[in-house]
């Protein structure tokens, strides 16, 4: 089959690789009908995340039709149409039973690596480093789904792939980012980053009743899409003092809730701490750029909440722990417990409350994937979300 394969830093190719096979009784194989490139895939493209090996198949947002089922999988049958959550979940461990699917204790087959990197293992992920299992990803014609009797969202016919695909990641990730804020009707929610997750977080915060949503980015078309979704926007190409601007917009109080939809590759031209981060990262003295986290801590209204769906992979520096502690801020983080939210979100899509396909800007074939990684990384051609039709 054809698949997008990681070969090294900024080296992704559309290769012919062996078809996946059933390895365990609970597995399923799907024929991928649609998959997507996620902003967090760019951390792999740029090789900020450790644990990649040449030959790894990328992709953790996929859906398709079940074409083969393992002998112990009674939940699925050939022909079922499913969306595949990016977190692989056994459904049986204590964390899964609690709904903490993204920290499933059994699905990371490289548990020792996960324990070493993070103290305790987290869930296995599709196409996202050997720290999280080294599972083949979904930017391919076929995908093996481990623990498939638990790791799936059955979806009905009659609704397009475009509306359903993002149940795999960015929609529930934006939703969880907003839910983590415990939004009250009096809240102003500030959201850094207007990529796909940020866009979903904007709409989720609005649906959950935020008084105001303020979105921060530097890419004109992303800011325009954020405005379309009901956000006020700050363009940090023209506003260098984000903290000051947010304070001005909130009568000096700061937003009650802050969402980091950027993660470890924050861009902030000119800011002193951003230059410092760039230099330390170049010298391998830190792995992640914490510009957004610092701004959130400094601007958030005391007793507020910081929500971090943006991906971080390692170590940061100059973390204002004093402000965090003394302001009594609550921090909620984590990869997304996808299955916790999908039943509710699928209903909202079916009811027409939201159509997540608004975020798609490019639809391509697998063979155009390598080029589109670069276009997406460099924010060219108005690219916000890429859907691949294998």
């Amino acid at each position, binding site marked *: 089959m054809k698949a997008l394969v990681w*070969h090294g830093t*900024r*080296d*992704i*190719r*559309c290769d012919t690789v062996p078809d996946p096979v059933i390895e365990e009784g609970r597995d399923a194989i799907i024929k991928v009908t649609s998959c997507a490139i996620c902003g967090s895939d760019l951390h792999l493209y*740029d*090789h*900020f995340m450790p644990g990649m090996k040449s030959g790894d198949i990328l992709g953790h947002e996929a859906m398709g039709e079940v074409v083969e089922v393992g002998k112990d999988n009674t939940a699925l049958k050939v022909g079922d149409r499913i969306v595949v959550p990016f977190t692989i979940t056994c459904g049986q461990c204590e964390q899964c039973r609690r*709904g903490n699917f993204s920290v499933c204790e059994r699905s990371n087959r490289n548990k020792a690596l996960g324990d070493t990197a993070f103290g305790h293992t987290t869930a296995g992920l599709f196409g996202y480093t050997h720290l999280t299992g080294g599972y083949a990803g979904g930017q391919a014609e076929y995908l093996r789904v481990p623990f498939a009797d638990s790791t799936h969202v059955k979806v009905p016919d009659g609704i397009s792939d475009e509306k359903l695909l993002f149940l795999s990641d960015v929609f529930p990730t934006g939703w969880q980012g907003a*839910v983590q804020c*415990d939004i009250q*009707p009096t809240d102003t929610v500030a959201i850094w980053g207007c990529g796909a997750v940020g*866009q979903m977080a904007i*709409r*989720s915060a*609005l*649906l*959950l*009743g*935020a008084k105001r949503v303020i979105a921060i980015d*530097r*890419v*004109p*078309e992303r800011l*325009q*899409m954020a*405005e*379309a*979704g*009901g956000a006020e926007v700050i363009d940090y190409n023209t506003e260098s003092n984000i903290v000051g601007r947010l304070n001005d917009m909130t009568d000096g109080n700061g937003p009650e809730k802050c969402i980091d939809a950027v993660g470890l590759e924050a861009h902030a031209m000119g800011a002193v701490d951003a230059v410092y981060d*760039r230099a330390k990262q*170049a010298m391998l003295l830190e792995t992640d750029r914490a510009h957004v986290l610092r701004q959130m801590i400094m601007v958030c209204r005391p*007793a507020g*909440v910081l929500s971090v769906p943006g991906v971080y992979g390692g170590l940061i520096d100059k973390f204002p722990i004093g402000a965090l502690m003394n302001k009594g801020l*609550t921090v909620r983080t984590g990869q997304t417990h996808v299955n*916790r939210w999908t039943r509710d979100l699928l209903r*909202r899509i079916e009811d027409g*409350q939201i*159509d997540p*396909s*608004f*975020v798609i*800007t*490019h*639809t*391509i*074939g697998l*063979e*155009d994937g*390598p*080029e*589109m990684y*670069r*276009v997406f990384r*460099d*924010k*060219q*051609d*108005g690219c916000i979300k890429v859907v691949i039709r294998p």
Partner: protein
Amino acid sequence: MSTRQQPLAPRGAPGGGAATRHDELARSLGWFSIGLGLLELTAARGLCRALGLRGRETLIRAYGIREVATGVAILTSHDPTPWILGRVGGDVIDLATLATGFEDDNPKTINLAAAAAAVAGVTVLDVICAQGLIGQKRLSPPGAFDYSTRSGFPRPARTMRGAASDFEPPADFRIPEPLRPWPPDRM
């Protein structure tokens, strides 16, 4: 929806890689930098003799260290752009150093001129590479794409506020009741 359906123009490395020709040029310049640096480190005396720059061996070795470090940084960094710009600065220093050798008593001025021409040629490549890398990250101007109707909502966004108020946040995602802010009338 302005979804791209046409095949992308063929760009990038053979075999469908994601690298642009400027990325490839940067890698080539990285390897060149390492090679030149090693030459300067190991054959500084011979280079100085050939260029009529006797007495500058230590300086040439220092330039060698700079070249090797820059080359390694280009090949290993997440973004080679600042290091390629650094190479441009290094080229200027190299040309200035070579210029000091054009004296009447230097019998190696022909070699010196050839070296200066070579450095000038590489400088052009460095500038082309830096411009290309910067250019491929230049954002589109405002208004280049129209996403103003992409709300994702069936009604105007302002009317969707609170539409998901039927959602009950799980207890573990809520601020615990004893820690919640008091209502204003309790103060």
